[in-house]
């Protein structure tokens, strides 16, 4: 049983009571809500005659259903309009802050909470969205919940939870040029499997993790859930504190020093005990691309689609299903596989540093003929910052569309979607069957820079051959 880890310390701090069923009642420090998983929770709250216990600890935005071309109201899709109107009504009625369209603070929920300084070390963070694990980048314990649990958090600011085990994922060395946090996490999931993390929180630690920027840590923790781990986290350190300082909801003045002291004390110490530990070497990781229908079916860009013989016996039925669905044969080099659509964005890779890395590859190049390519900033703040440094112009000149913020084609609850058998190079997080809006559409997951490499080449390509000079460093988004 783990002891002395950040997970254990945060769990103890937030423990409200032990419940008769054996679960723990855990206090939730920050509750993020959006339009898809909250309407039924508010309705249930009404049915029970309950109010929102801590509206000041509840923050809303709209992201999944917003169009990324025109965001004028009412939306063309009446269902989308009804969902947003319902969220607006619920927030107004319960006194909850909603960062709506055009507020300057709207965006994907997992992008805006960090950039507003809402997400802080040592908090428990819950949201009706599985990618809530993103917030673990700050040393928060953050996890996705369902709508019944959203109701519970609204009503009580707490949840009935079972404690997880803790696996430390220690990453030695340093990532090569052209290899990003996205490649690292795809590699971890490839090795540990999509079920490997079930029952665990993942603590990411080691020299390669300490060297990651906050935005890279967010990409890493974002996809912990794709490895089955409901939450993933990085211990807070100087990189975390530098990112937070001066953000709208971050402590200021004397409170800042007290906050840093509290946050620092929560990190897993040298005496921490883990339930399990796995070691990786960052230097051995290549740009990684998924070829199949789960995020665990990833390979290096210089590898070939695995044969059944190269696949564990119990994974073979899924491998065969993936060959059929993706129309890829075992032994095919992944580099050179043609793509139709290139998408940069999502809660995984829609932040400023992602757009910078992508723009650095796109600059002076052009999207190949016949390819639809578009960039969707993760938030209004990301869009404004990117435009201020001219990244939108770089993308447009290279043949990419520059869109408004939202979840876009990650999950196709808005007009952005694949059609028919189209195959996408996507910086998002899930390559499930039908995920991007066509029941037969296909998704290849990769880093934003790799998406650009695919867009300009017309097929999957190794971005390491296209990399030029690094972009201007920024302490918030650049590796230490």
């Amino acid at each position, binding site marked *: 049983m783990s002891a002395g880890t950040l997970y254990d310390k945060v769990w103890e701090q937030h423990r409200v009571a032990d419940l008769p069923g054996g679960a723990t009642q855990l206090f939730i*420090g920050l509750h993020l809500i959006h339009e898809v998983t909250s309407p039924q929770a508010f309705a249930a709250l009404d049915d029970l005659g309950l109010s929102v216990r801590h509206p000041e600890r509840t923050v809303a935005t709209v992201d999944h259903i917003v169009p990324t071309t025109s965001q004028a109201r009412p939306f063309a899709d009446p269902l989308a309009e009804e969902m947003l109107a319902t969220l607006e009504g619920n927030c107004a009625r319960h006194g909850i802050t909603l960062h709506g369209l055009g507020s300057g603070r709207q965006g994907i929920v997992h992008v805006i909470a960090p950039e507003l300084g809402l997400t802080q070390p040592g908090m428990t963070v819950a949201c009706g969205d599985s990618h809530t694990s993103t917030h673990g980048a700050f040393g928060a314990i953050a996890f996705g919940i369902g709508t*019944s649990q959203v109701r519970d958090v609204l009503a009580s*600011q707490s949840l009935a939870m079972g404690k997880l085990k803790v696996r430390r994922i220690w990453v030695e060395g340093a990532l090569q040029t052209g290899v990003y946090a996205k490649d690292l996490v795809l590699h971890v999931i490839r090795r540990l499997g999509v079920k490997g993390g079930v029952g665990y929180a993942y603590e990411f630690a080691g020299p390669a993790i300490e060297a990651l920027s906050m935005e890279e840590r967010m990409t890493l923790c974002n996809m912990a859930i794709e490895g089955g781990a409901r939450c993933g986290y990085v211990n807070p350190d100087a990189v975390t504190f530098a990112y937070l300082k001066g953000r709208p909801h971050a402590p200021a003045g004397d*409170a800042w020093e007290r906050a840093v002291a509290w946050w620092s004390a929560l990190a897993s110490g040298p005496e921490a005990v883990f339930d399990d530990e796995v070691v990786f070497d960052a230097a051995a990781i290549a740009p990684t691309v998924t070829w199949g229908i789960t995020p665990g079916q990833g390979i290096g860009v210089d590898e070939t689609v695995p044969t059944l013989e190269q696949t564990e016996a119990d994974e073979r039925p899924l491998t065969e299903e993936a060959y059929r669905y993706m129309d890829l044969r075992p032994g095919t080099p992944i580099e050179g596989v043609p793509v139709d659509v290139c998408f940069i964005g999502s809660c995984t890779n829609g932040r400023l540093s992602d757009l910078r890395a992508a723009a650095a590859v796109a600059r002076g190049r052009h999207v190949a003929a016949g390819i639809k390519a578009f960039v969707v900033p993760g938030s209004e703040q990301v869009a404004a910052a990117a435009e201020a440094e001219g990244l939108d112009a770089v993308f447009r000149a290279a043949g990419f569309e520059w869109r408004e913020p939202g979840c876009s084609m990650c999950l*196709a609850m808005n007009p952005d979607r694949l059609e028919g058998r189209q195959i996408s190079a996507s910086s998002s997080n899930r390559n499930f069957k039908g995920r991007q809006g066509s029941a037969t559409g296909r998704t290849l997951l990769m880093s934003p820079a790799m998406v650009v490499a695919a867009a300009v080449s017309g097929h999957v390509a190794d971005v390491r051959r296209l990399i030029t000079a690094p972009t201007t460093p920024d302490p918030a988004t650049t590796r230490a």
Partner: protein
Amino acid sequence: MSTTPFPAGPIQRCEGRAVVVAGDDIDTDRIIPARYLKCVTFDDLAAGVFADDRRERAGEHPFDRPEHQGASLLVVNRNFGCGSSREHAPQALMRWGIRAVIGESFAEIFFGNCLALGLPCLTADHDTVLALQAAIAADPSAVLQLDLEPATVRFSAGGKARQWPLTLAEGPGRMLVSGEWNGTAQLVAHDSELRATAARLPYLSGFAAA
């Protein structure tokens, strides 16, 4: 489509015919594609359950096969319900008529969502699940009896009965059997404990000086 009401109170047993959806890592996008999430109630979700898989298999999907209409037990393999946290997935299954799920393993968020709706998810080892799936394939009209305490499933066909042991973690098992699986009231009742916890979390007061 089932008209059986959603469960309320203690859940000790589930009886009915079974339907098998075989395969590992069946994610919640497959259980209900995202386009069906454009709604502000769960009322109409039955139509979306496995919608893309069913269209692809043109009437041959287990949820469309005539022999499985009215089934209330779902038998699956490993890591069922992975991916998105959408509670629309168990809602859609329940609105189709499913009242319990047996599988080799479940994704955590899905398991918790099911528990909150009173949809028991029980596990068994690989060989047991395969044997159960084979027995259902051989006689889809057989009625299964699933008990939560002790966790077992009993399969009766042609005057013969077979029984397999299942696993249900102690906490969720107790919650289902006692009827305390819908625990909002219990959480809200801990008012003084909630206040005490909030009082010791420095970030709730903006790290004000002690």
